[in-house]
């Protein structure tokens, strides 16, 4: 394996501000503004737009040389003012970038000043809510940016104003907060499950419409949909929170438990049989209602399909890469199917990743010995692939370089998927998600190993006469 200590070749993570946009874009009537130079917003808009195939508007405070020296206060204020004028949002998420973190702009203080100057109060009913989040690009990754932004949102909506204690009025609802961005299809599936379970729930952030919008009569300035603000404000009153993801720490769930006494339970992202079972178990435990027949049937269908495909998948060597918790859950599912995930990796640096992955191998297939890597770039992954020899790759579209070069089929899951359509509709969660994933993985393997050939046909003209036949056969040679 090539040993590199200093240069990163082909990054497998994106930076923190992008993660914050994925979170903010799942909130009703919200705009995002990056406090930094113009390029950050443009590049991340491009990255997300290409993936979701939707317009993605992210404002920028467009700092230039002068502001970099004297501070970006005026630009940030002007940026906020213009965003309010043009988009009239209810919430503005302000994410910092490496530039503004390093020059030392005190964003919360600037926002406070701005609100005073503009006469914006703290009444969530009528005032614009501005939520700062510190996301320098040199810190961690897009995953941490996502988690931090959600934490900042929940805090903002439930913070005690002044001396007042947060008045708790139990609402009987269930909070659902992921640690990594789900696809719009995944969010829709989780919401549907909750609706069928007759559970009153709050899913934050809900990108199911904002990043997968129907073609409407009018193009709205801000994408329609997202978690309603009243719901976010109601999260401290919920009976419990379910954090989706167990490898990364879910800060929002932790905050709600620590400060508002909302019990938090973290379960793996419900990809695969076991993880979906765990999710339903948690739902039944908190909501106290049985699993609807619909899902028993879906589960039955998944079992049926697992039996159908078990021989195709047994022992198939796979390499998986992506965000830590998605990889964790995908690995679990592969192990359940009898596959051999020889290489399990994530671009994010994560202390618990290896431990959690090894644990799940120990539980399901202790005889297997995977290579587990975190904080990798694609060049390192390429070397690892060469060493481990997987027969299939599972991850985002950036793995296509390895897939093409080594002629290994790639099943596209995660973000970004820039080279195929339908990224926003890829379903992986719940029993239905598992079924779709199982079909895609199996069919990809079948396509790659298919030995079927069309039967050799004698050309009709060959029957015309003895001479003609001879000629034809001669010719075909």
């Amino acid at each position, binding site marked *: 394996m090539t040993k590199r200590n200093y240069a990163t070749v082909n*990054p497998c993570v994106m930076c923190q501000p992008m993660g914050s946009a994925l979170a903010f874009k799942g909130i009703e009537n919200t705009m995002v503004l990056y406090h930094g130079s113009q390029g950050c917003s443009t590049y991340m808009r491009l990255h997300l737009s290409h993936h979701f195939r939707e317009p993605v508007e992210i404002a920028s405070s467009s700092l230039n040389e002068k502001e970099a020296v004297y501070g970006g206060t005026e630009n940030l204020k002007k940026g906020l003012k213009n965003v309010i004028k043009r988009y009239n949002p209810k919430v503005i998420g302000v994410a910092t970038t490496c530039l503004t973190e390093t020059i030392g702009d005190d964003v919360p203080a600037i926002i406070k000043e701005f609100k005073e100057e503009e006469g914006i109060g703290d009444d969530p009913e009528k005032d614009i809510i501005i939520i700062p989040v510190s996301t320098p690009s040199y810190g961690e990754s897009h995953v941490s940016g996502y988690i931090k932004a959600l934490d900042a949102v929940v805090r903002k909506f439930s913070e005690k104003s002044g001396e007042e204690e947060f008045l708790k009025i139990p609402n009987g609802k269930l909070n659902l907060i992921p640690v990594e961005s789900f696809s719009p299809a995944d969010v829709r599936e989780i919401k549907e499950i909750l609706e069928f379970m007759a559970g009153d729930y709050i899913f934050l952030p809900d990108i199911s419409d904002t990043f997968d919008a129907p073609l409407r009569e009018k193009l709205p300035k801000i994408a329609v949909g997202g978690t309603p603000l009243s719901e976010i404000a109601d999260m401290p009153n919920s009976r419990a929170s379910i954090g989706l993801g167990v490898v990364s720490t879910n800060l929002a769930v932790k905050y709600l438990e620590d400060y508002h006494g909302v019990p938090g339970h973290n379960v793996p992202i419900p990809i695969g049989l076991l993880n979906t079972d765990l999710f339903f178990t948690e739902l039944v435990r908190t909501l106290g209602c049985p699993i609807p027949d619909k899902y028993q049937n879906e589960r039955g269908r998944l079992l049926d399909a697992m039996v159908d495909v078990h021989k195709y998948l047994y022992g198939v060597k796979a390499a998986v890469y992506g965000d830590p918790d998605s990889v964790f859950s995908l690995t679990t599912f592969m192990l359940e199917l009898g596959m051999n995930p020889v290489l399990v990796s994530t671009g994010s640096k994560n202390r618990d990743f290896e431990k959690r992955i090894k644990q799940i191998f120990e539980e399901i297939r202790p005889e297997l010995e995977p290579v587990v890597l975190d904080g990798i770039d694609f060049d390192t992954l390429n070397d690892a692939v060469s060493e481990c020899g997987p027969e299939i790759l599972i991850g985002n579209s950036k793995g296509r370089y390895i897939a093409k070069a080594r002629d290994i089929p790639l099943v596209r899951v995660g973000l970004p998927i820039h080279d195929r359509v339908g990224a926003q509709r890829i379903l992986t969660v719940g029993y239905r998600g598992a079924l779709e994933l199982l079909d895609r993985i199996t069919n990809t393997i079948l396509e790659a190993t298919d030995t079927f050939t069309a039967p050799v046909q004698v050309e009709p003209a060959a029957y015309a006469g003895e001479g003609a036949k001879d000629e034809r056969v001669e010719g075909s040679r």
Partner: protein
Amino acid sequence: MIEKTGIVDTLEERQPYITRKQEKGEVIPLACDNNSLAGAISQRACVYSGARVVLNPVTDAVHLVHGPIGCAGYTWDIRGAKSSGVETNRSSFSTDMKEIDVVFGGEKKLSNAIEELVGLYRPPVIFVYSTCIVGIIGDDLESVCKTASKKHNIPVIPVKSEGFKGNKSDGYKAACDALKKLIKRPEEGAAEKKSEMRSELKKSEIKDSEIEKTEVKKPKINILGDFNVAGDVWLIKPLFEQMGIEVIVSMTGDSTAKSISRAAEADLNLVQCSGSMTYLAKWMQKEYGIPYQTISFFGIEDISIALRKTAEYFGSEEMKKKAEEILEAETNRIMPEISRVRERVKGKKAAIYMGGPAKALTLIKGFAELGMEVVIIGTQTGKKEDYEQISYSVRDGTVIVDDANPLELADLLVKQKADLMVAGVKERFIAYKLGVAFCDFNHDRVVEFEGFDGFVNFAKEVDASINSPVWKAVRQRILKLEFVEPEKATAEEKISEKPYAKKCKGVALKPEFLHSDVAVESQV
């Protein structure tokens, strides 16, 4: 709050950046070439992006981004610039600066990264891009690169592209400054020969005996500002070769450190992307006495002008004749297809929003060749003189816009009743949501648009997008059901004749389909 007076509703400070075509000679009242307005959502990127797009097609270079991971991540192989050889440029290299590097400085990490990459890739050149953070913490890129150059005996060139130090145009300049360092002074003899070239060629018309000599000394050109997206350059080079001209290098499409180093041997520079490359062309003129001409290889008219101008410059009758032969043969070859498309798209209205003004200008002609008219034209980086030229080239009433934002573009597309937009990925989905056809003329395209076959590709794409039946379908965004009058509803037989008429809970309903030929105004 919102100004209602302008061409479109926008911020007061943005109003001077949007205007309509003026009468000939009038100075165009358009503000441009300024920093983007905070909060307005510009489609522009940063200095780094400008530098990166210009240099990135240098195929055998290691493009090392000194900064946090994002800057390298978002620019990894995002332009379809093709290479005929190695493709080192398609990998993304970064120093992935972390908090500790920001605190203690990133110079050490950078020089170690350079050393590592030299060992692994043995590149003939390394471009080291500085990003926002580097400009703030003050890493001395110049000295790190200088030391590395000496140590590894290859050019390690700093590209001063701190994101906040200006706009995309400043990035173009930073890229040109980096290219300058690669261009070598030709050997004594070569330079002399070059200065004689023009007179030699003219003499050759008179003296037959000289012809052989001139054939040995083929005239040489560089193409500046062609990035070989989808292989564009490969459709252009053969045209010049047929005319007996050697293309030394295309900057930077499909170029290498070696081919760029020979650029000063050229007799003439042809500048296509003027926004990014005029600066370099002017420098080469001053430094090496190489004149330049601004041309375009898009559309039949502009290709013709490019070939004729070049032949005219070298002055040989034979070359001029050859150029005419090529133009006639090629035009005749593609004309049937162009005419077929023209019949299908003529009269349609186009909107152009480009990064640079050169592409916008040449597109106006291209659309005219397809019988289409331009109703909106804008760029991210146009200068005053560019907009004057644009204004001169478009019809009265055309809206001209600088540094537009999504809301302005959406509003303009509707108000100007555009049928097709030509732009990049970020604009694509705005057009689609409004039910407007779209053609990508940016880095995302996978087919050539330059040259004769390229123009056919362009025409076909315009046709495919404008004439797709999906636009008819999307006119009706909501399925509307019409209640059928009770009198009609009682006539059971009459309804059942229509297969789509349904009786629903005692109420007769008739869905309103739009797949008929009825022209319905777009709902947007």
